[in-house]
């Protein structure tokens, strides 16, 4: 057999048919959320049923409130938001789809829950109704987001038509410095290759830095592949992956585990496999990162300054920087660590896993929040674990709000949102104009950096804070 990348192997194994280079791929698992109402409406319009309902998983996450959850769905004051939560439950029940509903003890974000339960496994092809489906690639599977029409097609046929993307390997080697995390790695990658740098490509992250990362950290890296334009992001499964998966509810056990391992261990890219593009990063050179503008590519080390449009390589770039600074209300040359924030958000499918919560708590312990700071765990499972560890009490003692799980202030459609002009240090994935609320201003950071900003009231180098602490 020819030399193959991990992506090639998974792609080939899921190919059902081909028409002039467009391939029909079999989908193992599909992940949907309230926003999939458009897909269900299209199914209904064509009078179609979900073909393989047990391979579709539904999540109440985008529209659920992050407080007052004891009142259940009736506690959602806004009728339009409440209706989105109810509609997903109704559609899931009608089609026999497993719903992780608002009251489910395992409720959470669609990119947090499937890995926790072992629904996400190596070698799978997973399609999600959300661009951050790339998260699941951390397990050595192919996973990407699609729009409503393609999701409707997946639900109706358990398959999808695709052209084969190109491949990109990003190697990161060396040891990350103190205070430098997976979030900083992926922001540095996006700053280096650009928000469209991986368009049309599936990224495989490799190298000693990635190999040393936990599954939580790998998920953070793969999560933001889409912010570099990547079709998907993936990481070869290894001992860390298998240790994480063992004993999860949907993971194989006993003899089935051995059968699965026989498949999984053959997945990593062959040593001589060729990639269409290769990018190299030195982990030791990385610092905690923050974004200053309105695209994730607008990221710099925290010890840097807001860029000056007059220093841009050309007039187009200069105009882009000027427009971003205008929206962000920032002056060129301002030290990033001098930027005051009004709010702090720790959460989202990028950074709401137990390790993220622990990292933020370790910093929160050093002081008291000067601004409104929210911690929103990614799932009930993360929430319970954190509470068992006493992390919730660390946050509340430090003046942070410990809330209930959901997408919350990342996508800002459940009622949680910034007011116009408010500035937020956020562990989420997008600093687009208006993303966290109309007129809101977002600075993307790691969980530790977000907690540090909460304690000082401005963007802060967590390494300095920890030294003083």
């Amino acid at each position, binding site marked *: 057999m020819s030399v193959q990348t991990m992506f090639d192997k998974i792609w080939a194994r899921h190919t059902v048919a081909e028409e002039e280079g467009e391939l029909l791929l079999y989908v193992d698992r599909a992940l949907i959320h309230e926003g999939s109402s458009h897909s269900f409406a299209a199914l209904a319009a064509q009078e179609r049923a979900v073909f393989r309902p047990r391979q579709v998983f539904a999540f109440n996450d985008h529209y659920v409130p992050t407080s007052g959850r004891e009142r259940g769905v009736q506690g959602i004051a806004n009728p339009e938001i409440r209706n989105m939560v109810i509609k997903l439950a109704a559609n899931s029940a009608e089609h026999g789809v497993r719903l992780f509903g608002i009251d489910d003890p395992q409720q959470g974000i669609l990119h947090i829950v499937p890995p926790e339960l072992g629904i996400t496994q190596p070698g799978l092809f997973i399609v999600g109704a959300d*661009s951050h489906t790339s998260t699941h690639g951390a397990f050595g599977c192919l996973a990407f987001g699609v729009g409503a029409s393609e999701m409707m097609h997946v639900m109706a046929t358990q398959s999808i038509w695709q052209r084969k993307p190109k491949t990109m390997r990003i190697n990161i080697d060396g040891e990350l410095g103190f205070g430098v995390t997976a979030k900083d790695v992926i922001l540095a990658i996006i700053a280096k290759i650009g928000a469209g740098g991986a368009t049309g490509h599936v990224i495989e992250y490799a190298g000693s830095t990635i190999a040393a990362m936990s599954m939580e950290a790998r998920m953070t890296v793969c999560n933001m592949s889409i912010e570099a334009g990547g079709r998907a992001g993936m990481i070869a499964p290894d001992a860390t992956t298998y240790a994480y998966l063992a004993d999860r509810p949907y993971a194989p056990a006993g003899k089935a585990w051995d059968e699965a391992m026989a498949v999984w261990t053959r997945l990593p890219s062959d040593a001589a496999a060729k990639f269409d593009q290769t990018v190299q990063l030195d982990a030791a050179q990385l610092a905690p990162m923050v974004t200053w503008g309105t695209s994730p590519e607008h990221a710099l080390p925290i010890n840097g300054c807001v860029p000056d449009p007059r220093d841009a390589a050309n007039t187009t770039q200069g105009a882009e920087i000027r427009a971003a600074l205008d929206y962000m209300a920032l002056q060129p040359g301002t030290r990033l660590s001098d930027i005051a924030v009004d709010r702090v958000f720790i959460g989202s499918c990028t950074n709401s896993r137990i390790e993220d919560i622990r990292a933020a708590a370790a910093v929160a312990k050093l002081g008291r929040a000067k601004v409104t700071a929210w911690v929103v765990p990614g799932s009930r499972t993360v929430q319970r674990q954190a509470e068992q560890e006493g992390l919730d009490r660390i946050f509340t003692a430090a003046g942070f709000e410990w809330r209930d799980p959901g997408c919350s202030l990342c996508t800002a459609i459940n009622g949680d949102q910034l007011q116009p002009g408010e500035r937020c240090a956020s562990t989420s994935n997008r600093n687009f104009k208006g993303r966290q609320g109309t007129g809101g201003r977002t600075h993307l950071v790691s969980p530790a950096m977000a907690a540090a900003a909460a304690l000082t009231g401005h963007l802060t180098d967590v390494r300095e804070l920890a030294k003083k602490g």
Partner: protein
Amino acid sequence: MQPFTTITAIAAPIDEANVDTNQLCPTRFNKVPRGPQYAHVLFHDRRFNADGTEKEFLLNVEPFRSAAIIVANRNWGCGSSRESAVYALYEFGIRCVIAPSFGDIHANNCSKNGLLPVVLPEAEVASIRAQLRDRPGATVTVDLQEQTVTDPAGRVHRFEIHPVRKKCLLEGLDDVARTQEYRSRIEEFEAEYRAERPWLYAEKR
């Protein structure tokens, strides 16, 4: 889906790079059912103040209110997979976006809804945008059968498109109907795949 064959229409130049789908359709509008109301949603927060009055924005002024083509910059439609961004473009009247590159998911969403995404080299797209700024209201012709864009100066730019996508757009074909012809192939695939990976179909513990 409505077929796309050829159009000659007013084209609007949007110079901004990395226009994300949040700009095309702010998230709070995602829950709006598909329909004509999406015309108002396109670039909503860039087009309207909180009180509903209009802001200064290209698509708020004639002749660009009547545009059916947008000539954009790199990485158009990056970000969220929301198809509502396409509903907003379509209901506003846009049938084709020409750009040096697109967010992959958005480009797929366009072509599944009868809206043609055309990729041309950066310099060519920049030159078309410059012409449109110099002559507001100038028209561009997009011919899918011939795979050409004719700019206001009469220059013809050829573009690539996958033959299957081209056929689906030209004929307004529905993907699900096409896939149903593969139903038995899918079921054969499943039988063999399930035998190899039975644990994927076991009851959870």
